[in-house]
């Protein structure tokens, strides 16, 4: 029997859904990034996570710097419009706070891996990676021959996600989720994961029709949590704008280990209940 998404608090949702060692995606292609949920993972001190995301940005930098990650599966890791992610670089270049294994793809490869997991297929096919050094470095890029034309194409395996976490504009009381604007790979992430959490700006009585909206029926989502402002400093179209200054300010905070540790204490761990 299908069960509808249950609405819970963020702390309870993370405690229930995410275990140490899980493979987990917090998706959002520049928009609707589930930042508050990432901070809750840090507060609950999850460890040994395999973090998956096309565009790991500052919340992944924070998770990596806080020691939550063992591995990163990604296609572009940077602070958009600003520069490097310094915690990610420190982990890769100097193994601090712990070494970070990388599995890197292109955007097309990652998008197709998500699509394959949503479709329940073992792999996806694309024209890509040919002539680049990526197949030599990434085990999950292999050639495949088309059985109809004989053309050699590229295969990438479906992502095997334990948990997908996304942020949406709203849900109704039954747990149906609605998001609009740039929706990236969020639908694929939720449909492709064993368990899912959607944090939302608000829970409403009725979901009004909205242009270009993606709707996730309640029975495709495990938990919904109301977290107003949960995507800040990214944006939620129709609710708040991207805080570009916060992205610029992150550069200096993330650059230095001590500054980062202070930021973590003050802004994330401060007042957190013991795990």
């Amino acid at each position, binding site marked *: 029997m299908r069960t509808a998404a249950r609405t819970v608090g963020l702390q309870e949702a993370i405690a229930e859904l995410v275990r140490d060692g899980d493979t987990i995606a917090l998706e959002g*292609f*520049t*928009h609707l990034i589930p930042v508050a949920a990432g901070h809750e993972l840090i507060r609950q001190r999850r460890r040994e996570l395999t973090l998956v995301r*096309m*565009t790991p940005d500052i919340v992944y930098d924070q998770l990596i710097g806080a020691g939550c990650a063992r591995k990163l599966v*990604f*296609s*572009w*890791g*940077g602070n*958009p*419009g*600003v520069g*490097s*992610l310094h915690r*990610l*670089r420190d982990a*890769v*270049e100097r193994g601090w706070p712990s070494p970070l294994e990388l599995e*890197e*793809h*292109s*955007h*097309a490869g990652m*998008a*197709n891996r*998500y*699509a394959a997991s949503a479709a329940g297929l073992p792999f996806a096919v*694309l*024209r*890509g*990676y*040919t*002539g*680049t*050094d*990526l197949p030599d*470095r990434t085990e999950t890029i292999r050639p495949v021959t088309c059985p109809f034309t004989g*053309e*050699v194409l590229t295969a990438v395996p479906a992502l095997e996600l334990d948990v997908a976490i996304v942020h949406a504009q709203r849900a109704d009381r039954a747990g149906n989720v609605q998001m609009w*604007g*740039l*929706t*990236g*790979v969020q*639908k*694929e992430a939720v449909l492709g994961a064993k368990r899912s959490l959607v944090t939302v700006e608000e829970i409403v009585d009725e979901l009004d029709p909205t242009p*270009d909206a*993606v709707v996730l029926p309640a029975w495709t989502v495990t938990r919904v949590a109301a977290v107003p402002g949960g995507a800040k400093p990214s*944006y939620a*179209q129709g609710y708040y*704008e*991207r805080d*570009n200054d916060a*992205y610029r300010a992150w550069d200096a905070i993330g650059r230095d280990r001590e500054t980062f540790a202070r930021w973590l204490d003050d802004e994330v761990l401060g007042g957190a209940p013991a795990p």
Partner: protein
Amino acid sequence: MSAPSATEVMTVAAARSLRDGTSCLVGIGPPGAAANLAQRLHAPGLVLVYESGAIGAKPNRLPLSIGDGILAETADAVVTVPEMFNYWIGPGRIDVGFLGAAQIDRFANINTTIVGDDYQHPKVRLPGAGGAPEIAAACAEVTVILRQSPRAFVERLDFVTSVGHGDGPGSRERLGLAGGGPTRVITDLGILEPNPETRELTLVAVHEGVAVDEVREATGWALRVADEPRTEPAPSAAELETLRALAGG
């Protein structure tokens, strides 16, 4: 008005290269600024496509991120990321792609992955591939924008992230890359284009006030120079004014 910065010189040259009525896949920084500038000057019918999913975006200011809210709000169509790569970029539906690079070689192959010769322990970990490999593979034309220095214009890439003209004539055909590959490289010193036969990057223009020898010194290989490289005119007052108004400064 103050003199143009190096970035403004590159941005204006890139804007001039865009033709009206074409579609253009833009990122952030100079490429996005160039496309927005061209749309306001000589190419009002230019279609701006952002890999985040906005097709036909008409932003009235320059976004800091390719996923800025203004893009979806002003777009003709908004699509998901799998659709953007599988239905739009991959099949070569976008005419012009813009790419940046940390390193480029004489055949306009690009590195945005690592600096250093050890992948496991890089000297510098760069952001990685993003959409660049497929853009470089599939777009009919690709314009690369980066500052010219021996550190960036290298004899041998530390990592091939995106393929330009491979190791020379016939490379793209052998690899089955359907797009035309890099058609121009715009730097703060001049403009390079692949030689039609050898596919090797050749200096075809210098920016006003730049000597050919300066460009040679800023290149990590023996740079080919066209017989009579032209001079790319400095940004006009109208171009600079429009660009600065877009940037909000």
